[in-house]
């Protein structure tokens, strides 16, 4: 049966359990030094592993990105949730989604390509976007509009650093104390919401978007 062909791979004994645990923990696996051996195994056994997860768990081993940006992760079906019990599914706090979009915007849209310090990121989010500031404080720090205090600043910093820790856990970034580096899988945040992003007008009606 194809779905267990990867068991015969010589490295399966050493690597499969690690890969299986990582994937089921929501980790994105890409061709970067810290995951390279796992990535290569998946790449070599892609078809068989895909069949395995689909057949036994009802979830999908998914590949995204091209060439060096390629990454793998486990995705749910849009409609069913496969054989994964509810308690094994985890929802990102929505604040983290906002942090992810902010990081994406700062680096990949506004071009802060030299940004790799967590504390600098926190400062940029707090200071550099005047137009977004009131809503950032409202949504992330739970501050009432136009009334921000030092406590709110600290809340923002904490949410940002908590979010980065979570991103590091699922292989979106590498985090090392104050230093962070986005990995290819980080761009998945835009893909997750691409339905909305690509069809903003249709989805909301043209009037509602500023």
């Amino acid at each position, binding site marked *: 049966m194809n779905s267990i062909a990867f068991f015969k791979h010589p490295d399966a004994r050493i690597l499969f359990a690690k890969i299986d645990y990582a994937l089921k923990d929501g980790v994105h696996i890409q061709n970067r030094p810290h995951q390279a051996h796992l990535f290569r195994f998946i790449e070599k056994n892609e078809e068989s592993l895909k069949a395995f997860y689909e057949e036994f768990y009802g979830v999908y081993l998914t590949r995204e990105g091209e060439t060096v940006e390629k990454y793998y992760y486990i995705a749910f079906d849009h409609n069913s949730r496969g054989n994964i019990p509810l308690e094994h599914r985890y929802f990102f706090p929505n604040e983290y*989604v906002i942090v992810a979009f902010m990081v994406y915007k700062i680096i*990949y849209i506004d071009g802060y390509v*030299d940004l790799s310090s967590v504390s600098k990121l926190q400062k940029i989010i707090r200071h550099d976007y005047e137009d977004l500031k009131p809503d950032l404080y409202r949504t992330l720090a739970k501050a009432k509009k136009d009334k921000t205090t030092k406590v709110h600043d600290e809340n923002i910093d904490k949410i940002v650093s908590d979010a980065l820790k979570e991103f590091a856990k699922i292989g979106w970034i590498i985090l090392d104390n104050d230093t962070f580096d986005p990995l290819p899988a980080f761009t998945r945040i835009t893909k997750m919401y691409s339905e909305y992003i*690509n069809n903003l007008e249709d989805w909301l009606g043209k009037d509602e978007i500023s």
Partner: protein
Amino acid sequence: MSGADFDFFSEITKENIYELLYPKKEVGLAIVWLYQRSSRGDFPDSTFKEADIHEALDSVRFRPKHQPQRNSIEYYNKIIADLQEYFIRYDDEKQVYRFKEYANEFCTRTLATLKANFDPTQIEKICKKLTKELIEAETKEKIKDWLSITFDEFKPVLRQQIDFIERQIDNSVLKLRQKINDNKQAKIVQNLKEIDDRFDDIRSQNKELRAAFREFSIIKKYLQERSMSIDDEEIGDLIYSTLQFFQEMKRLLSSVDNQLDRIQPKIKQLFSNLNKPLFNTNIERFLRFLLDNSQIKTEKSKKLLEFPFGISKVEILRQLIKFSIVERRKDLFPAKSLKKIRYSENQASKQKAQQNARNRFIRQDIINGYLNRIHIDLKKKSEVKFSDYFFEALYKNDLHLAVELAYRVIRDKKIYDWRLDLSTQNDYSKQSKNVAIRKMIIRRAK
């Protein structure tokens, strides 16, 4: 004078020394103006006249506005007098001026920093020369000179090269951001491509610089070997600081590499985004929409952020299962140790016990004494009566000793080679008629 005795700070704050070393802008610029003309060869013999200095000051537009024209000569004279302290030297025979070394340094340093010519081949050449000179420096004094003079002069040249690379990175990043902000430009992608190429250049420059630094490992090894055989504290310190310098350069070079490693993938992503400008705009609009329309809901005193209706949350698979490992941990459940009883030493009891032991030895000696007497007596007589010894022991010593003596006679008879004849009759003590033992005759066996 050694560096330790010289207080740089207090020295420079004396009188107007600082002002003389760092003249005000107009004067500094005039020096640069002269330097540039001189290096172009405009002044024969590298000398210049007072009129040249005036021209320099005029050309940098130094003329106090509130002063009438005729007074400016006095100002110029004052400036020229000040400059003579560190910058220029007056040759009164020929009535010309020439630069002092400080002025040369002042200009060349600044020039090198600004011009920032990247020249790893130059570094490589200097490194090779340094190695050669070091190997030729055979005496202690020569090594010391190499460390404190030759190598020291070379340090700023190296640092400048790395500074230059770092500055290029910063400038390129800044330029990149400016171009993005200014994205009405039709040529943005092409512009950014140029910047990306610039990063590639910087990386290869860094690589070249690193290659030029290879010579360092030879110098380093040589210095380490030499330091083993030279027993001189000052040279030891100099070698140490030179090795530290190599470490610092190495760290700087790899930090440049790290910086580039971080920046370049992000630029690639930026490019792919620029090719789909609508997607970018939409991401920003979507983020704006989320920020504007998400609501804070309080649930069980916890504030939760809710996205506008219809927007799904990010769902991620996460195993909760952790293997239950039943383990008897040694640190939590250590083997029960047996209670150890420690007896405290009681000096009185100890002495008593020792005295008892000593007494027992003494008693053994006494018994042995009786046995020896019997033995000797048996050499004179053919037989002896045991009761004589027994009663003697009984009255001289005690009953206990006498009984022990009897036991020893019976036990050790073979050792002494005795024959014992017991009879049913009793021998009575002479002292007391109530005390008697069975009659026992001891004879020699042969």
